[in-house]
């Protein structure tokens, strides 16, 4: 790669921009990147048009960091386009990796989302019945909008993905590591998760851990946590044990439980059910009624267990009609 500059693209689909900010947060390093590589597309930071991408030869891009989930037809179109143009396509950040926060939409449905946003909402112009449409005819011509899909997909549902960089957002030092690895041509095996460890958050977490038995669960606001002690042992839900490390224990160190943005450990196929399995096992009771009582203190378990990965779970979305 020495002879020729690396051709890279960064793109966002249904995302918040945090992944791109994470790249900017590599600070001075970003200038390094500019030296090492031609950034051919990066809507947040540099010029570059869809048309340019369409005009590229297939595989002309060495590397594309794709962040964001697939929420609408435009996202899907760009995902397929960039897949074609890139030697290596990276699902960058939780949304592309697992569906991310936008993936929580899979617990509801398209109709309810549109109704809430445009019809049944306290600040909507009274009597308004308008909902945005894929096609609107105005007297001067036609206006198009992408089609809003029924549910959210993770990138690998739509196209073949070479590597996964987890995190919401990925920790800047991880971003650096990934880019450098790529520049140095140290390519991991296809399909692997890079920029994260194969251990879980607990490995990096400095809180003391002992044998676990839980008699009561607390919501974060219901208890003043002991900063030295494992949150779970205090009855505070923390997905740390079921989540890849690499983030730097950002949330537990702030005093709040991990919500699993780095995704499941290497040998786990479903983060939420695995966490359930572990969590329930340490409940300290043999009495069905008492057990019911204890778990009644865990509200909306699904959004804790699958906060960043409903579309990546085995069940993928709510089956409610």
């Amino acid at each position, binding site marked *: 790669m020495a002879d020729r500059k690396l051709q890279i693209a960064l793109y966002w689909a249904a995302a918040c921009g945090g992944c791109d900010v994470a790249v900017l947060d590599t600070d001075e390093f970003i200038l390094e990147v500019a030296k090492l590589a031609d950034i051919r597309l990066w809507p947040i930071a540099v010029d570059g048009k869809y048309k340019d991408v369409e005009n590229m030869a297939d595989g002309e891009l060495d590397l594309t960091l794709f962040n964001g989930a697939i929420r609408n037809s435009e996202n899907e179109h760009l995902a397929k386009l960039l897949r074609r143009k890139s030697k290596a396509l990276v699902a960058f950040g939780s949304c592309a990796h697992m569906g991310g926060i936008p993936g929580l939409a899979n617990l509801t449905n398209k109709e309810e989302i549109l109704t809430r946003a445009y019809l049944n909402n306290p600040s909507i112009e009274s009597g308004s019945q308008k909902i945005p449409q894929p096609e609107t005819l105005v007297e001067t011509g036609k206006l198009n909008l992408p089609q809003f899909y029924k549910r959210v997909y993770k990138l690998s549902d739509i196209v073949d993905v070479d590597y996964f960089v987890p995190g919401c957002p990925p920790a800047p030092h991880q971003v650096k590591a990934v880019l450098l690895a790529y520049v140095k041509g140290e390519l991991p095996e296809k399909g692997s998760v890079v920029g994260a460890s*194969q*251990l*879980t*958050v*607990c*490995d990096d977490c400095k809180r003391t*851990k*002992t*044998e*676990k*038995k839980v008699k009561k669960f607390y919501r974060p606001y219901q208890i003043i946590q002991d900063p030295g002690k*494992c949150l779970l042992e205090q009855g505070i839900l923390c997905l*740390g*044990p*079921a989540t890849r*490390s690499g983030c730097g224990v950002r949330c537990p160190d702030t005093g709040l439980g991990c919500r699993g943005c780095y995704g*499941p*450990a*290497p*040998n*786990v*196929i479903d983060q939420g059910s*695995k*966490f359930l*399995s*572990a969590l329930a*096992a*340490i409940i300290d009771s043999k009495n069905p009624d008492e057990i019911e009582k204890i778990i009644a203190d865990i509200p909306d378990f699904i959004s804790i267990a699958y906060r960043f990965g409903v579309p990546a779970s085995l069940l993928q979305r709510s089956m409610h009609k």
Partner: protein
Amino acid sequence: MKECKIGVYICNCGSNIARVIDCEAVREFVSHLPQVTIARTYRYMCSNPGQEMIAQDIKENGLDRVVVAACSPRMHERTFRNAIQTAGLNPYMLEMANIREQCSWVHKDAAAATEKAKALARAAVLRVVNHEALERMSVDMCPQTLIIGGGMAGMTAALELADANQRVYLVEKKALLGGNLGRVDLTAPYLDSARDLITERITRVRNNPNITVMLDAQVKELKGYVGNFTAAIQQNGGQQKEAVEVKIGNVVVCTGYQEFDANRITHYGYGKLPNVITSFEFELMLRAGRIQTKEGKIPQYVAIVHCVGSRSQEFHGYCSRVCCMTALKYVHEIKSAIPKCYVSDLYIDMHAFGKGHEDFYRHTLDVKTMFLMYGKNEHPVVRRADPGDDCEMFIEVDEKLSGEVIEIPADLVILMVGMETRPDSVDVARLVNISQDKEGWFIESHPKLDPVATTTDGIYIAGTCAAPKDIPDTVAQARAASARILARVARGKIDVDAVFAEIDENYCSGCRMCNELCPYSAIEFDEKKKRSHVISALCKACGACVSSCPSGAIKGRHFTDRQIYSQIEGVLL
């Protein structure tokens, strides 16, 4: 997907399977599954020709995995594992599909049953692809043995081992050896002295250099696993010494029984009427050589009541097995001491099943004893006699054989109290990790085929701690337990089953979710490495930790996630 050569064998089980399931169709179906090299049906797969057929295929076609669709794995898994092992395959390269107990025997609809059989066979094929060759581990067997309880059982077991030149630690809670038998005078049915039996044991135990007797002592903690236990023994005595640690390979629990507390029964007047006494109180008189009432009179009438606390709904449902013969023994001893004493014996049923017991019963009939039969869940009532009567008490009994209510005189009433478990048997069970039945007796690993072993490997039970029994049975059990131990000690090593959980340290983050879950405390946490670790010899492969490991670092050998996933796919495809 890894390349492998699978042989699938569908058993007709005579007509047991073939009557309902179209085995040929199943064979045809599986023969087209990927990786299946060969598929056959046969009349009886478990027969020698059947096993040889499999072995031959393995050799000739280089099969590396075998599926047998036949009866329940609980029936023949071992058989077929051995079969493929003789052909040079690792025994764990076998998977069975249960198409008899769970298919042909429970479904009449041939078509549906055949479809189900196909699904089960396919699941087995997909699973076996993910099987791994497993090696049984073997660990050193420490030849020393710990025996808890210094009664007849404990001492006998100790001597058996010590005579075979093995070191034994004999721990007795009380200050002296002998246990309950040490409180007895003569023994039924041959009326020889219990004291002689016990003294002989005690002297031999005392003089045997291989036996360390620890009196006034209790086992505080038992760590480790078969072949490699460490016991902490606390000797009370005068000055507080701290616990002694001893290394042992096996443990024999001989903690015996305690007698039923007669105070719990009111209608016999025990505790109120001075001359109503228990069998053990009577033994004291016998050993003192003087049978008399509290007032010091020689009794003219003695009544013996059976089944006190035994065979009743409100107390113990079971029979204590030794009381009947002991009662007859009393008749003989009373008659020989006070020839013209009238002895009456109130029983429910006369249990005389042991060797020589029936003769013993007949002799007792000869020596003019009044046998009165009362009904189960009924009971004789004892009342004080009026002044002027020529006896201390009267017993009213609804006599079954005559069908009449009879009142009999008594100066002395002997209550044959039954056996029950000691109150601290719970602690013992917890200490050595064995289970108890609803009455509190320790449970053997198999009531018929494996009566002295328990579900915890390396822990044996002998004597009355497992259930009421007489001296010969107790001695037999004690010696059986010792024999089991000697056999293992002789091999020097023990095999630990290859199916156990293991933690891959590359994936363990030391979250310690699993630590509390193991019923056998097989998981230890390494504070330095901050990793958990499974002591495979302690693991019984239940898989609780495997499913609970949030990072998927624990692998349940032979029941891995991948194996079970493929099985799920197989039954549903």
